[in-house]
């Protein structure tokens, strides 16, 4: 496969992921304003973070395909934020688990019922979008 095609594919992939995250973010905000949905936990700042991260990816997508640093910058910072958000949610889940067992000491608790936020899936999916980073040296400053 040509390098161009590989980059194009990974950008399309990330853009789809970003679009999904964007919608998720919007619904998370809507959820905290009273419009509950099943898949989006209500979380105003969490939703805002998703919206910003995915907007950066979508904003940078076009110029990334054109092998321009300008695009790649936005694209990568957006992905990095998305990964950071996912990582945070993984840490939150682990800390919650730990906290649950600490608070359970001496008590007759039922097992921990994990509730996995969609951001955690996004974390793993976003890692796959990083491909253009590895071909960074093929990028240019400006259109020649």
């Amino acid at each position, binding site marked *: 496969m040509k390098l161009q095609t590989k980059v194009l594919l990974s950008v399309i992939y990330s853009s789809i992921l970003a679009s999904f995250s964007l919608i998720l973010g919007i619904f998370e905000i809507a959820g905290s304003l009273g419009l509950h949905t099943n898949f989006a936990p209500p979380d105003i*700042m*969490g939703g805002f973070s998703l919206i*910003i991260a995915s*907007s950066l990816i979508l904003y940078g997508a076009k110029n990334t395909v054109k092998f321009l640093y300008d695009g790649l*910058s936005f694209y990568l910072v957006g992905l990095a934020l998305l990964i950071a958000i996912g990582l945070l949610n993984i840490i*939150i889940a682990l800390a919650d688990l730990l906290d649950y067992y600490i*608070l359970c*000491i*001496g008590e007759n608790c039922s097992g921990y019922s994990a509730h996995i936020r969609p951001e955690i899936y996004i974390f793993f999916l976003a890692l796959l979008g990083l491909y253009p980073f590895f071909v960074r040296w093929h990028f240019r400053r400006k259109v020649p």
Partner: protein
Amino acid sequence: MLIALAGNPNTGKSSLFNAITGAHQHIGNWPGVTVEKKEGTITFEGKKITIVDLPGTYSLTAYSLEEVITRNFILEEEPDVVVDVIDATNLERNLYLLTELMELTDRIVIALNMFDEAKKKYKLDVKKMRELLGLPVIPTVAIKDKGIKDLLHACLHGYFKPKKLSYPEDVENRVEKLQRMMENLDLKNKRWHAIKLLENDSEVRKKFANLGRKDILHEAEHLRHEIEDIYGDDIETLIASFRYSFAHGLFHEVAEPLNVGGVTITDMIDHVVAHKIFGLPIFLVVMYLSFEFVFVVAAPFQDAIDLIFNGKTLASGQHINGLIDISYHWMASFMPNWASSFINYGMLRGLAAVLTFTPIIMFLFLILSILEDSGYLARVAFLMDKLMRKIGLEGRGIISLMLGFGCNVPAVMSTRALKNERERELSIALNPLIPCGARIQVFAFITAIFFKHNQALVMWSLILLSMGVVALLGYVYSKTIFKGKAEPFVMELPPYRVPSLKGIFIHMWEKSEGFLRKAGTIIVGAAGIIWLLAALPWGVQFGGENSYIGQIAHFLAPVGAPFGITPESIIALFFGFFAKEVVIDVFYVLYGTKEALFAAMTPLQAYSLLLFILFYTPCVATLATIYNETKSTKFVLFVILEGFALALFFSFLAYTIGSFLGVGG
């Protein structure tokens, strides 16, 4: 012959000095101060040359010792040549000092150091630079001994016909007017003195006061006001901006960024995080992620510490003993019960309270140190510069405000980084309005009880409100009490790097040290006093209506009524003055359980209380720090009043509107 090396810090002055002098150097101190002075002697082309390495400075104001040493040396010792060592990779920024040096002396040789690195960054037109400046410009690579001979040659035989920066006419006229008044004074560089007088330079003003020339000082003051009126800006900003435009223009004439090779990761990140539209939202997201991280990760640690010390009461009513219970029983075996109770449930529990909230503070400082060491905070300062200027601070003001989220004590101390006294005071006045880690801890406690389902939303409403109030008050203050504009300053943008663990922990420790000391003393003491008030007079029910604390609560009841604040809360607030965390302790003493607390207030009352806690007077430790930094009782009183005014205003507003609308009641 005497040559002085001047330049910004880290431009390679010392490297150049070593390259020139080799082993022939002497290290001492500048007279009377502990700033290092390096001197060396060499013979070049048969001439004996003495070389002095001046302290690194970004400008030549009177704000720092280094700057004063540098300019006085050049002014008084009159070196034959001043070599301005410029970091050519940061050409534009380094040119600012050049504009100031050129006002001080004509005999300047410019060493374009780090030329090896600079060549990778832009195409530099050295010849054009010589022409534009009328001074010798010599590319050097100090660490490879390159350009040293050329440099020395230029010092001996150079052609010095500097084309100086000239100010707009209405400024130049006034400079000349002042110069004429100095005619029969024995001063070395009258133009420089005149400019500095217009700039309101404290050292130069002192000099004229000592000379007994009040007339000149008065005239300078008058002329300065005229200029400020003409331009509608303060003089320091104006003069600096003239110098910048010179540096900026020169830079664009001689340097052309290369469009070859890669862009560094730093460039790429900066392109986005300092973006004029996306920069601010990204900053908010980073803040949010950081705070979320702190609270979530701290929680299990807090609960574990709480469990170890305080034990717990199970749903069945059975109590698992914690360390404190165990220690109480042990001590009760050889001392009276009341004494054991005082030591353990009074003092020791206070200590345990301190320990349970340390995780939040430690993690907050951990994350702030990471943000700082990675280089991101410098971008925040850069990004916020424009906004911060609207509230009368330079971009770096945001950093001390952010530190306030950890603890106001180190935050107030960090305002020392602001060079300008007015900005410092403004920054100190605003800092206590930022909710510190301890207050946030209290919020977390109260919101967890009253706003189970909207905890994050309520917490964020408080944090955002405090930021809004800081912005608004900053704007108002900078137009009134702390009138003035922020001094212009070149933002240093260090490359991003993965911070070292050691560095992070050192910085984290530096910031938390003072906080922990306060915690260990004040909080334990306050907890002891609260215990006594709750246990006395002899024989009453602990914390009950007849105890002293209960009586005080009863007495205070009418005061809090308009705000929906309960008497118990007033007592909690009072003790919160010693340290905010104590509020939680008082609630436990007075209410016993979280359920009782929940029953005692409506959510609206709780929110009104939260607003009060958000703003009312900073704790004793913060006030003491503010006094130390300002040496002004008035300032401390001002901060207290400011806090109470805001607290009363917001909690009254929330409670009245809330009651009227019937929400949360």
